[in-house]
């Protein structure tokens, strides 16, 4: 601040100081001249002698100014004024530069802010970097599992001496119904070990936390609530501490309130209520030893390494476990998005790099055009460093403008990227949304400066080489200005464009393959809705309401079929059961198939054909013969070579396990879990014979006016029961889109930025070629004068461009294959060497090169040799 004030004061006085300095030096000159006159020289000779004595006045003045100390500010002001003048002299370049930098910096800032929120944001607990989590590598797949049994946790807690604390937290906080004076409400409940808050180092803002109970002592039935829940549900009333609610059959007392910033250890799930696991699950309960349901979180003692812990705990648990940092908590979203986001980061990074190379190339050409001006400035006493700084200032101006606008654009790009995430990730969106925090600002500022240096430093150093300062001459010796640099920059741009377009190509093709395949359903004119009637109504009452809703919705105008299933198709989940057949001995390796409970008409609503037999009807009730429809894969696998109609099988487990079902129909195969997996062997059962699911997915085939239909259906559902909860009321095509979210994200982002990069590179190529044509006018004139045909001149320029294209492709395609191989698990139905993508990218780049090179080449061929040569 003081510095700034001093600089400002200085600026106001600087004009007077300049005048003073001029007067002082003039006085010196006069004195010197008087002296020379006195020694008998003529007036002219005296003046010359005095000038010789003083030397270069400009340099003396400059050096003296340097002694004033704060000339940095003054020079910067001067540089900026000059830079603005230069920038305004080349508005097309300036606009192109700022525009491309804005998009490049903006995209990088947006992706950085998402990665920052997803990967770098640490948990709001004491010393988060000490937190570690236990994982176990599965020997077959190598994929790590981060879930363990409660017993594993207990043995680690008791056996490890290198961890200063060990806690457990159930793998996923779940939405649960809790009752308060018979009023039901839904809250996100997380079961955690009783020492959870102690190990994390989170202290309550009200009341107390639960603590580890001594062995043998009975734990209290207490809960800690989040500040948000305290605010929304208890209206921040201090009396909330001590309030009670019912969870299942137990009465739980609220003991304390956690600080506002702490919402649990799961990134995309904000917890409302924490309840000690020990109280809910009895000490001798089977669920303590079976089922991996908890994360094991440890706190590393300050002087211990992960390797030491790994060895110790592996011995304690008797399993090959290892530890990794848990500083950022747990996140499924992070696992799902990490690789695609890195790819997106690579894409936007490449775009910025292409922008930089492009601007560097244009700057190189531009500086060559200014050779004369730079030479004059050098001759007038400007040092090389001064000129370099001046050139850098021009670009800093552009880069900072790009950076500032980039921050604005980043907001939109970030919102566009996040719009890919389905609404179910809403809590995570809060952490990912674009915010102008310190880290983002520093990132953008650094990016702008690095961009500026990478664009301008090299060209500035080149064009101020001592050799170039002979530019005062009619034509400098550097003539065409080292075209190989410019050419290799173009080759680099082409290679990077190739990489970008190849990524876009294989992902667009993957999405196409995923969407284009026959999934065994028809997504046209199909609306779905997840419907939940209140749990406290009981299964029977809910099943009645579900059926009533189906009947009422079926008579809505234009609706063809309304049906429902107990799980959603393509929603990532399914129930699998082991099967048995009455006429066969039980095999050791029992066959498995996916079960689905559906209403009559469901297959028709989804557009799945029934190949043989019949659909379920209203006559298939809980009291009639249990029936099933199997799909063709089921029939081929379990009843090979014969018609399955009338045959029987049973499933193991489930509330009606062991009951024989008679096959009444065969349906076509249909993708169920997601689009990547092959359609599985499946059997469908009537919902009326095995129902009782909290949420059913309705499928409504009807008009294409989805909004109207959704509104009508919602109204109908609320008419059936006011307390109905509707989620995901969307066209089925959106459910399909959601199931390939990652592929679509990468495809669309790389596609959009690939086009942008292509335009940037094409404009760059055009600019450099256009400049080269002007520059080589004389050479072209000579060629034409000695008999070259205009066509051959045109071909010469086109040949050069296509040579650069070929070299760029030769580098870019193998590089792309290397990168794509790394993410090949995200592809579908093609290999990293996909010939279609390679050919398509080559054609697109060739077309862009032709478009960019045509005009300059054309202009070159129409050069009038007389005019060109006379110009010299």
């Amino acid at each position: 601040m003081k510095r700034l004030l001093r600089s400002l004061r200085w600026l106001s006085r600087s004009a007077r100081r300049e005048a003073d300095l001029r007067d002082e030096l003039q006085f010196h000159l006069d004195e010197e001249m008087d002296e020379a006159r006195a020694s008998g020289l003529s007036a002219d000779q005296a003046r010359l002698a005095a000038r010789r004595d003083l030397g270069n006045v400009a340099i003396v003045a400059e050096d003296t100014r340097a002694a004033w100390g704060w000339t940095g500010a003054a020079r910067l002001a001067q540089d900026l004024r000059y830079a603005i003048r230069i920038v305004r002299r080349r508005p097309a370049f300036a606009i192109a530069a700022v525009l491309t930098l804005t998009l490049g910096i903006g995209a990088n800032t947006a992706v950085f802010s998402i990665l920052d929120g997803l990967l770098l944001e640490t948990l709001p607990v004491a010393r988060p970097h000490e937190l570690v989590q236990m994982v176990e590598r599965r020997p077959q797949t190598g994929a790590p599992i981060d879930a363990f049994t409660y017993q594993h946790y207990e043995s680690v807690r008791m056996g490890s001496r290198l961890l200063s604390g060990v806690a457990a937290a159930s793998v996923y906080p779940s939405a649960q119904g809790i009752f308060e004076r018979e009023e039901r409400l839904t809250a996100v409940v997380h079961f955690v070990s009783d020492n959870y808050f102690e190990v994390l180092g989170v202290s309550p803002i009200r009341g107390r936390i639960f603590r580890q109970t001594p062995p043998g002592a009975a734990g209290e039935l207490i809960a800690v609530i989040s500040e948000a829940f305290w605010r929304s549900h208890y209206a921040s009333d201090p009396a909330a501490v001590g309030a009670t609610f019912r969870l299942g059959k137990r009465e739980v007392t609220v003991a304390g309130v956690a600080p506002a910033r702490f919402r649990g250890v799961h990134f995309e799930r904000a917890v409302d209520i924490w309840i000690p696991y020990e109280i809910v699950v009895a000490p001798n309960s089977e669920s303590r030893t079976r089922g991996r349901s908890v994360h094991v979180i440890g706190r590393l003692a300050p002087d211990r390494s992960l390797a030491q812990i790994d060895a110790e705990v592996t011995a304690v648990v008797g399993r090959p476990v290892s530890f990794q940092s848990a500083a950022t908590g747990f996140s499924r979203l992070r696992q799902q998005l990490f690789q695609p986001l890195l790819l997106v980061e690579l894409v936007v990074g490449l775009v910025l790099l292409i922008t930089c190379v492009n601007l560097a190339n244009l700057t190189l050409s531009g500086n060559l055009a200014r050779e004369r001006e730079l030479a004059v400035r050098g001759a007038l006493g400007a040092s090389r460093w001064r000129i370099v700084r001046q050139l850098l200032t021009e670009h800093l101006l552009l880069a900072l403008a790009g950076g500032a606008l980039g921050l604005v654009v980043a907001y939109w790009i970030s919102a566009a990227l996040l719009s890919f995430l389905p609404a179910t990730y809403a809590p995570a969106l809060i952490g990912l949304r674009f915010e102008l925090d310190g880290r983002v600002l520093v990132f953008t500022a650094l990016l702008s400066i690095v961009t500026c240096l990478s664009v301008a430093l090299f060209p500035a150093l080149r064009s101020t080489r001592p050799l170039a300062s002979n530019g005062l001459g009619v034509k400098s010796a550097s003539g065409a200005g080292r075209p190989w640099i410019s050419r290799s920059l173009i080759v680099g741009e082409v290679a990077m464009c190739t990489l970008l377009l190849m990524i876009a190509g294989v992902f667009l093709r993957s999405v196409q393959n995923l969407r284009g395949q026959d999934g065994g359903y028809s997504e046209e004119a199909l609306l779905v809705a997840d419907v939940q009637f209140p749990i406290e109504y009981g299964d029977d009452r809910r099943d009645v309401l579900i059926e009533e809703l189906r009947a009422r919705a079926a008579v809505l105008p234009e609706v063809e079929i309304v049906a429902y299933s107990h799980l959603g198709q393509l929603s990532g989940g399914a129930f699998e059961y082991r099967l048995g057949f009455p006429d066969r001995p039980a095999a050791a390796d029992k066959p498995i198939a996916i079960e689905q409970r559906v209403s009559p008409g469901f297959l028709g609503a989804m557009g799945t054909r029934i190949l043989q037999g019949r659909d379920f009807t209203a006559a298939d009730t809980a009291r009639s013969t249990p029936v099933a429809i199997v799909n063709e894969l089921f029939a081929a696998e379990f009843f090979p070579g014969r018609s399955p109609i009338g045959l029987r099988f049973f499933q193991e487990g489930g509330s009606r396990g062991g009951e024989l079902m008679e096959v009444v129909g065969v349906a076509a195969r249909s993708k169920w879990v997601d689009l990547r997996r092959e359609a599985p062997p499946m059997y469908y059962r009537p919902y009326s014979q095995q129902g009782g699911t909290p949420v059913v997915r309705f499928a409504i085939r009807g008009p294409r006016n989805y909004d109207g239909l959704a509104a009508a259906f919602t109204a109908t559902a609320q008419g059936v029961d006011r307390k109905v909860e509707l989620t995901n009321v969307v066209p089925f095509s959106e459910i399909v889109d959601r199931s390939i979210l990652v592929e679509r994200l990468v495809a669309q982002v790389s596609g959009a930025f690939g086009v942008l990069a292509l335009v940037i590179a094409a404009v760059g190529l055009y600019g450099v070629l256009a400049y080269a044509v002007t520059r080589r006018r004389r050479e072209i004139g000579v060629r034409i004068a000695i008999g070259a045909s205009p066509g051959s001149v045109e071909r010469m320029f086109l040949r050069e461009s296509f040579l650069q294209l070929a070299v760029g492709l030769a580098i870019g395609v193998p590089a792309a294959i290397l990168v794509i191989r790394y993410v090949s698990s995200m592809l579908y139905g093609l290999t990293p060497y996909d010939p279609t993508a390679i050919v398509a990218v080559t054609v697109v780049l060739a077309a862009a090169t032709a478009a960019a090179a045509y005009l300059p080449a054309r202009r070159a061929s129409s050069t009038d040799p007389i005019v060109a040569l006379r110009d010299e």
Partner: protein
Amino acid sequence: MTRDRSRVELLQGTLDLLILRTLLFGPTHGHAIAKHIQRSSEDLLQVETGSLYPALHRLEAQGWIAASWELSEKGKRAKFYRLTARGRKQLEAARARWDTFSRAMGLVLKPSDAEP
């Protein structure tokens, strides 16, 4: 020019000392300072204008000398520099340092002269 024949390059940092010493005789302007140094060194020391004025402005910025516009002996407006109290102290310190330095140089270069 012939007077360049036996000219001595100024050692780094010595110009400041010479300027301060010159101003001990009273305020004067840049040109006179240069001439005075030249004369009193019997023309052996030639002060470059290119280094004189930066040095003067530097000393002024450090507060060792102060400047004001006054009329020269010929009645022209000139920038006069004078020694400040801090400059006087600086001069004493610098001179003491220089004396030590030159004695040391003398001892090394001409040991016989230094011994009794």
